[in-house]
């Protein structure tokens, strides 16, 4: 069985300063249900439904995206630290000027013709996912009193079972905007918050001309399989 979510290490549903949460998070408390085969199973190979896409968002030469080149090494593990090789992971982020390729983005920042900010990757041995891309910019959130999102990268991934689904955001170390971001700070436990910030690694350990960031994604569940009740 999976352990219940710890409210200290998970965000609250309604977040002060983030107006949409009060329209969308349920008013009634979430119900607890007994786990059955439905929640403790999941698609064995999601690649049959979602094809892997792109593995390099930075490009090369004349097609190189603007911005600081980064090399991201993310590891996907479960609560036992067991790697999830073969798991699918979706990544998306804005360009170096803070602009997304999305019709909803009304931010007055330039698009970059050499940057397409979305990839779907498969974790390799050791649960490792590597992505060559550029560091995303910060951007203002419309219709707020000066809320700026710090640079961040979105992740959507699947663990072994339905209840392991994880959608989250990764932040960068040393960014002053991390202190005031309503989304990052919706996680109350400082240690848990710090785990959502990537680590900058010694540059000599990475590919030339790229800053290397390491990150760990921990999905719910323990051991090779979740046990049925």
């Amino acid at each position, binding site marked *: 069985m999976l352990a*219940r979510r710890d409210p200290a*290490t*998970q*965000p*609250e*549903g309604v*977040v002060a300063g*983030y107006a*949409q*949460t*009060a*329209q*969308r*998070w*349920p008013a*009634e408390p979430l119900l*607890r*249900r*007994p786990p*059955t*085969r*439905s*929640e403790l199973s*999941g*698609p064995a190979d*999601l690649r049959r*439904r*979602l094809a892997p896409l792109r593995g390099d968002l930075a490009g090369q030469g004349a097609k190189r995206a603007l911005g600081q080149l980064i090399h991201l090494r993310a590891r996907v*593990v*479960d*609560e*036992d630290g067991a790697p999830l090789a073969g798991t699918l992971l*979706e990544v*998306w982020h804005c360009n170096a000027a803070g602009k*997304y*390729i*999305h*019709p*909803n*983005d009304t931010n007055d920042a330039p698009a970059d013709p050499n940057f397409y900010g*979305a990839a779907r990757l498969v974790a390799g041995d050791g649960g490792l996912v590597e992505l060559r891309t550029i560091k995303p910019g910060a951007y203002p959130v419309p219709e707020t009193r000066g809320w700026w999102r710090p640079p961040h990268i*979105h992740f*959507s991934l699947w663990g072994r079972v*339905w*209840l392991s*689904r*994880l*959608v*989250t*955001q990764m932040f960068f170390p040393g960014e002053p905007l991390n202190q005031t971001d309503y989304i*990052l700070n919706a*996680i109350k436990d400082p240690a*848990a*918050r710090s*785990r*959502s910030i990537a680590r900058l690694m010694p540059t000599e350990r990475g590919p030339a001309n790229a800053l290397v960031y390491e990150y*760990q*994604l*921990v*999905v719910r569940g323990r051991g090779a399989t979740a046990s049925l009740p």
Partner: protein
Amino acid sequence: MSSVKLIPTGEMTLGPFFPREFAQGANDLTLLDGRQAPGEVIEVSGRITQLDGRPLDNVVVEIWQADSRGRYDAPGFAGWGRAATDADGLYRFRTIKPGAVEGRLAHIDFLLLYSGLMRHLQTVMYFEPGADPVLDAVPAARRELLVAKKTATGWRFDIRLRGEGETPFFDD
């Protein structure tokens, strides 16, 4: 190995800029690798609204279900799908009517991802009321909110995130 105890990464909202190409193309579960899955083809659709009643555009809806014989991840049917709502708040799946899973009524698990949802929301759609350990965990007066309505074209399952007629959601 078992001495290690890591804490699951904090969940955070999908945000408003989930790539459109990710949200599209996976809402027909009846075909897998070009082959028709066995069972009754049905359409499952519904409208997703927020507290003020406004329908929500581009909500990402993911489902997980058994095949027509009540088996998960059986050959010929993957059981997983994803759709996004349109400007009228409508999502639409084409799928196979699931069979009853051991100890459960026939049902489809739902997971919602959206801007303003700090964590994903989970709920369950049923085809008819009855005895079911998960439906029994819902207060009796709210159970009917999880039972889809039969329509001329399929099954209708509307979802209200918050407010009057709020859909029951599950923590796990």
